[in-house]
């Protein structure tokens, strides 16, 4: 691009002024008209819609609606989304503009070198051949922008507004900069709860991931043993738990551990007082029950994964180690575990993130409690549960979005660090 600006001639200048003019001057009619058409279309879009959308993105609305008086007004949330869409179109337009200048310069260079530039029809044909990756990726990239990028960026942008509480449409939302982030960290009630929950969240994610992973691996190793009879049946049982929707399992477990549930009935029948397994005094007991129930739900998938990987492991290493006198544990630690670990670190990281953001476990088992010392949260809530309390229950969307951004940053840092330090990244060739 810089080269085009430095060395370009009048044709490039014409294309810089109005897309397609340079190409037309260089007798590339088809391409020139296409650029011209795209330029006019973009101008029409911006004049008709885009300009208003971009202004709306900046102001987030200037006129409050009142449906009872039939007064139509601005919807700040819609304006934020549409403004974001206009920005993406604007970025697309600028990329097209740069491509147009570069193309005019390339054509100028080819002509100067005495070569004949490709005809427009030939360039179009190349989209099905040499440049097929461009046509193949166009729709997926568009889809990713619309269905993935816009919602994520929207959520991030909400963190920089005062959207939530009483400020929901038809009230007008405003930009507030980093205010939501400062509030999380500086509000007297907020900061202690945030760090207490973050602390428990990290412990939970590490323990749950380790328990599920090693539980699944252990089960797979066990079922891999020749001495185990009826492997198909044993494999089917954990998969049943995996196949039943998680929230049904969780509601069943909640009933099982409730005061009127079967466990307490057995305890009462045995002559003892019932136990509040999940009630408000049950901090660590409820946490451990949560870990075990999560293991019940997640170990089957870990087992299937580990079983698949173990079936690909050559038995030569372990047999050689056996001949050399290695114990079963030594074989596991030095051969089996590194082999499985190498193949599953990315999955392990995704499981860690899923556990870090495991909303269902404590929502279904122990929702609806605010414990003393916590701000609108209980001592088993994870950040994602707290986020739910703040946003859905209390409508603090901007604070919720800010907490989401913080969760995203934390999980990204942990995941990247683990991945970069893992054998999957550092010793990529070892097991090939």
């Amino acid at each position, binding site marked *: 691009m810089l080269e*085009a*600006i*430095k*060395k*370009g001639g*009048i044709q*490039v*200048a*014409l294309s*810089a*002024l*109005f897309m397609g003019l340079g190409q037309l001057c260089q007798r590339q009619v088809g391409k020139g008209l296409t650029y011209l058409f795209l330029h006019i279309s973009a*101008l029409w879009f*911006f*004049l008709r819609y*885009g*300009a*208003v959308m*971009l*202004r709306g993105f900046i102001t987030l609305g*200037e*006129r*409050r*609606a*009142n*449906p*009872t*008086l039939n*007064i139509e007004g601005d*919807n700040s949330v819609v304006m934020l989304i549409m403004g974001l869409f206009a920005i993406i179109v604007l970025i697309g337009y600028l990329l097209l*503009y740069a491509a147009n*200048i570069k193309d005019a310069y390339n054509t100028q260079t080819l002509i100067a070198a005495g070569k004949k530039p490709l005809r427009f029809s030939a360039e179009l044909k190349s989209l099905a051949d040499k440049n097929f990756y461009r046509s193949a990726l166009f729709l997926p990239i568009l889809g990713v922008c619309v269905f993935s990028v816009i919602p994520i960026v929207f959520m991030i942008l909400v963190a920089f507004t005062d959207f939530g*509480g*009483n400020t*929901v*449409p*038809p009230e007008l939302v405003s930009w507030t900069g980093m205010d939501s982030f400062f*509030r999380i960290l500086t*509000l007297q*009630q*907020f900061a202690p709860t945030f760090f207490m929950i973050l602390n428990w969240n990290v412990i939970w994610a590490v323990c749950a991931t380790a328990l599920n992973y090693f539980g699944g691996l252990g089960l797979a190793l066990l079922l891999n043993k020749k001495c185990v009879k009826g492997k198909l049946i044993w494999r089917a049982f954990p998969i049943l738990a995996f196949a039943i929707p998680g929230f049904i399992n969780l509601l069943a477990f909640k009933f099982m551990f*409730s*005061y*009127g549930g079967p466990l*307490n009935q057995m305890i009462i029948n045995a002559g003892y*007082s019932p136990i*509040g397994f999940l*009630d*408000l*005094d049950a901090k660590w007991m409820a946490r451990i029950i949560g870990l075990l129930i999560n293991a019940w739900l997640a170990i089957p998938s870990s087992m299937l994964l580990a079983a698949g990987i173990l079936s690909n492991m050559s038995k030569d290493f372990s047999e050689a180690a056996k001949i050399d006198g290695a114990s079963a544990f030594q074989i596991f630690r030095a051969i089996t575990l590194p082999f499985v670990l190498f193949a599953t670190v990315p999955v392990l990281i995704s499981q860690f993130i899923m556990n870090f953001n495991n909303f269902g476990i404590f929502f279904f088992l122990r929702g*609806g*409690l*605010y*414990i*003393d010392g916590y*701000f*609108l949260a209980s001592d088993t809530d994870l950040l994602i549960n707290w986020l739910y309390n703040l946003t859905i*229950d*209390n409508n603090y969307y901007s*604070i919720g979005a800010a907490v989401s951004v913080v969760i995203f940053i934390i999980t990204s840092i942990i995941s990247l660090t683990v991945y970069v330090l893992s054998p999957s990244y550092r010793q990529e060739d070892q097991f090939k």
Partner: protein
Amino acid sequence: MVKIISAITVHLLALILLLYWFGKPAQTAQEDFGFEPILTKFTGELEANVTLRVLENDTAIKQGFFEELLQAFNEEYAEYGIVAVDANMDQYLDLENDGPYGFGPDVLYQANDQIMKYTDGQHIQPLPIRELNCYPYLDENAWQAYTGTDGQIYGIPVNIQAPVLYYRKDLLPANWETEWDKNNNGIPDMIENWTDMYAYSMQIREESLGSRYGYMKSLWDVYFASGYLFSYGGYVFGDNGNDAQDIGFAAGESYKGLHVLRQLASIMNEDCIDDTITKIQYAKLASGEFFASMTTPDVYTLYINELVLSYQAEGLSAGEAMEAAYENLITAPVPYLPASGDLTDQNSETIPTIMMGGVNGYAISAYTKAPNAALAFADFATSYEMIKRRHELLGIVPARMDNASDAGGLTDIVNANLSEGNIYIMPSIRAVAQIWTPVGTLFADVVKDPFRSLAEQKFISDEQLIEGLLRASTQVYDAIWTLQ
């Protein structure tokens, strides 16, 4: 190079100028939001050939009342081409998100707190209530449930939701007329006041060695349990439920109500700490393991169904079982409380129990294209005949006093309770959504106390009870205001 940089600069400057020029709003002046023009939507001239989408509650749909209502209305207004249909939406409507995009109903039937939360964003229409035929037959307190902070009325009361006591007449002691009717008024003492209910429940439990209970209820449930606080001076929000700055759970002597809750827990078992009793109360009352419980009037048929099954299991025929069920299942107003707040104090004066309640009713969406037709539907649905039919089919307590008076019995008593201020209408402002978890957690904590070892008990003294109430009030305040 200069030419190209100049061309790029011109191009980008032109683009920026165009964006700026065409991005300017056509009109930015704020409209006057005076309320006078609102009622002009209701001109009295029916919009012809329109379809009204009506959101009813699930029970009315299941029991066939809604179909009857639609049919009757459509026949009545056929000459105008007005057709009312089922909005076919989840009853947990989100009008503020659906309405602006044309997805909401025209007329909605919901509880007062659900309807009134839409007033902040002007999602529902203030109504010309004096034009409605039900206007003179509704109590001021019922209208109050739908009165916004601006003084406008946004809903038409249909039925009163308030807790009532359910008990088994055949489980009363054989000698109740001589031993349990001190004032000889023909009503058992345990049904009249909580002190005797406490004593009788204790007696049942001791005599059955813990296999049967007297009064049983999930006590953490804020809707049913906060009434004990209100009876001793507590309230939710100040200024008739409109001032969310003033949280009143700890006001007056509400700690006495918390003490009553703690004592009630001691005649039950640990099931009262969570929602176990709520799930099993119908079957347990039918099996005779519970003598009494408390819930809303609209679940009467659930109790009857369980009782019929129970009597049949004891050997009665279907007809006999049905007859016995209707004879023995009694609904009664909630018993009186001791002024001292001590359920063991037989000598205390008694005070009425003020229970939390609500008023369900009709409202009209501000997004309806046919406000006059929608008002005609609401007027029709709240007519004497339709409310009577709703009462017959659904067992509701009508808010219309003429209907209530004709129905008599408990219906009349509940209406009288509303008029006398013994039903605390759930506040109608949005902030009410923040009370349930903090106060529910406090109630669960307090009712667990009798089941803790003495060293671990947290709510023994009045000061500890007050401290708990203040803490819950602070949590409610924080939930509402910290991030506003």
